[in-house]
Each structure stands twice: as C-alpha cells, then as structure tokens.
C-alpha cells in the first residue's frame, strides 16, 4: 500500500483503504479503481491523502530525490546571497517533512 497526496493519484489506481466523508459515509470502498470523474471530485470532498495499491517509497529515498531537485533548481544562483538563504531554508523544510 502506498499513501499519496491526492494530486499524485492516477486514473486506474486501486483504492487500498476506504475513503470516508466527514460524516462517516463511505465515498470509495477498498478495491475501487479511480476514474477521471472520481479523481476530479476527490479534493472537492476534502480528501488530502489516499492509500492506493503499490510499494511505499522509502522516505529517505523521497528526501534524496527532493534534495537533488532542489540543488538542480538553484544552479546558477550560487553567487546570489538572497537566493542561497532561500535555498537553505527550503532544504531544512524538505528534510524536516520527509
């Protein structure tokens, strides 16, 4: 099972944990496949994260990828002290959350 933000869900993903509405009604049961229509409704239902079938990516691997991308984004800004302060702050946030 993989826990992912709604924004990462794809059409065809299989729901691994039922999704409930705020008043406890089942919106999507285990085993349901995500359709285009359902995907576009999820965030409207107030759902932030869902569980789908698949391998959970290890969090240190996620962090490594995020930090690599961060280094890449700031290429060319090394001499800019403002940009470097922003990068350092972002680095600490990205590390903290993963």
């Amino acid at each position, binding site marked *: 099972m993989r826990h992912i*933000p709604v*924004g*990462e869900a794809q059409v065809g993903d299989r729901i691994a944990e039922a999704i409930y509405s705020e008043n406890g009604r089942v919106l999507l049961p285990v085993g349901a496949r995500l359709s285009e229509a359902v995907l*576009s409704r999820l*965030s*409207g239902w107030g759902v*932030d*994260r869902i569980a789908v079938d698949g391998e959970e990516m290890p969090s240190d691997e996620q962090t490594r990828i*995020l930090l690599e*991308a*961060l280094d*890449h*984004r*700031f*290429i*060319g*800004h090394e001499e*800019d002290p*403002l*940009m470097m*302060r*922003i*990068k350092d*702050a*972002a680095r600490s*946030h*990205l590390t*903290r*959350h993963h």
Partner: protein
Amino acid sequence: MDRDQVRARIEEAGNLPTLPDVVIRIAEMADRAETTGRQLGLEIAKDQVISAKVLRLVNSGFYGFSQPIATVPHAVTLLGFETVKTLVLGSTVLDMMRDALPGLWEHSMACARTSALIAEHALLDDVQEVCTAGLLHDLGKVVLRQSMEDAFRTVVGLVQERDWLFVEAEEHVLGAHHGHFAGWLLEKWGLPDRLVRPIADHHSFHEDQPFARSTAVVHLADILCRAEALGRGGDRKIPRLNPAALEILGMAIDDVLGVMERMSEEMRDIRRV
C-alpha cells in the same frame, strides 16, 4: 512571428477559454455601480456549476477563512466584487490548468496562499485581490497551450532539452512570455489593472511599474513556491529574486524566511515535487 502577431493569435484564438454568457452577464453586473453584493451573489447562485466552483475556490484554504463559506452572497460580502468576478472568470480556465502541465494546479494553489501570507506580512490593502493574482499568475501557460499548441510544444521541448526556465523558452520562441499572454487575455476580459498587472509582470518586476507592490508579492510568492517544491511550474529551474521586490515590500530576508516557515507549516496538503 513578432510580438504583435503573437498577441493577435492569442486574442483571436477560437479555442481559448470562451466565456459562457452567464459569466459575461455576471462580470457586467459586477462592473455596474448600482449592483448590490446581494444581487451579484444571487445571480451567480443561479448557475450551479459556477457557484460550486466559486465556493470550492473560496473554501480551498488559501483565503484563510476560519469558517466554511456556504453561500455565494456570503462569499461576495467577504471577498468583494472584483475578486468574485475574477474567480467566476478564472473558474472557466482553472480546470484547463490541471491538463496543461503536471503540477501546475498545485503550484497555482500554493502561490495563491503564499501571496496572501506575503501580502498580510507587508500590510497590503487588498490581500484577497493579490491572492487571486497569485492563483492566476501562470494562466498564460494555459493560454499558450490553448491558442498555439505547436509553439507550446516547442517551448516544452526546449525546457526539457536545454534545461531552461519556461519563461526563457517562451521568450526565445515567441518574444513574449506567459505573463504577457495572460495579461492580454485578462485585459480583453475587462479585468482591472490592479489584478492584471501583477499577473502580467510577475517575471519582469520593476519598482516603477504601476501596482509594483502587488507585483512584487506575486514575483516573490512564485519563487518561494518553487524553492519549497510546492507543485511545478513546468520547468526544473527557479528565476532569480529581484531584491527591489523585497525593498518595495519593506521586507528583509528574515521576513522572507518567516513566510517560508509558515508556508511549510500550512501547506502540508500540497504535493512536493
């Protein structure tokens, strides 16, 4: 193709987000001085699809209301005519944003909320309006895709092959960028300059421009969202922050870091990529 030709192509494109009659009627009502908030709210509420979209945007968290807003008239009271009008207009294109570039919707949401955080910090007069500008700041990327798909593909190709910023590739191919594209469309839609300028100029901030403070907010918010990896703007680089933007907002780097701290606390629901 020169800039004027690009502009003509964008303004005349048949497949651009066209505005349904009801949206045009609402926008006209919002412009009339004698229209009351209640009348405007009721007119919007007549169209279920549009009211649902407006309420979803109003309640999506970036305006920072602590209580859910249940009715459109209430939203009009809280947000003001111009913001609601922009949301009504914007709601017809926001759906296209999801398809335009992966992560652009998340980037736009994050930029809206960040714009509000910065605007509050810098004590701007109309936080909600700046927030709306932040939401729509990359609208031009959708406009480009809808009006000139070939050019859009060339731009995306250059961004991937040469690892350029999206805005650099646009300038290279078209001599103008998504800020201009959005600006031309929004002007045509009759939105006021104080909303259009921050969107049009977020990549070309200058302290002498009209509405420079709002523009500075969106310029900074865009860069901070990219730094924090909140959604994606379609490229893998980050534009340089113009220090004059901080100056005009009366912010020091420590204030910026404070805003980033709040972003990181408040935007856990947005995917980091």
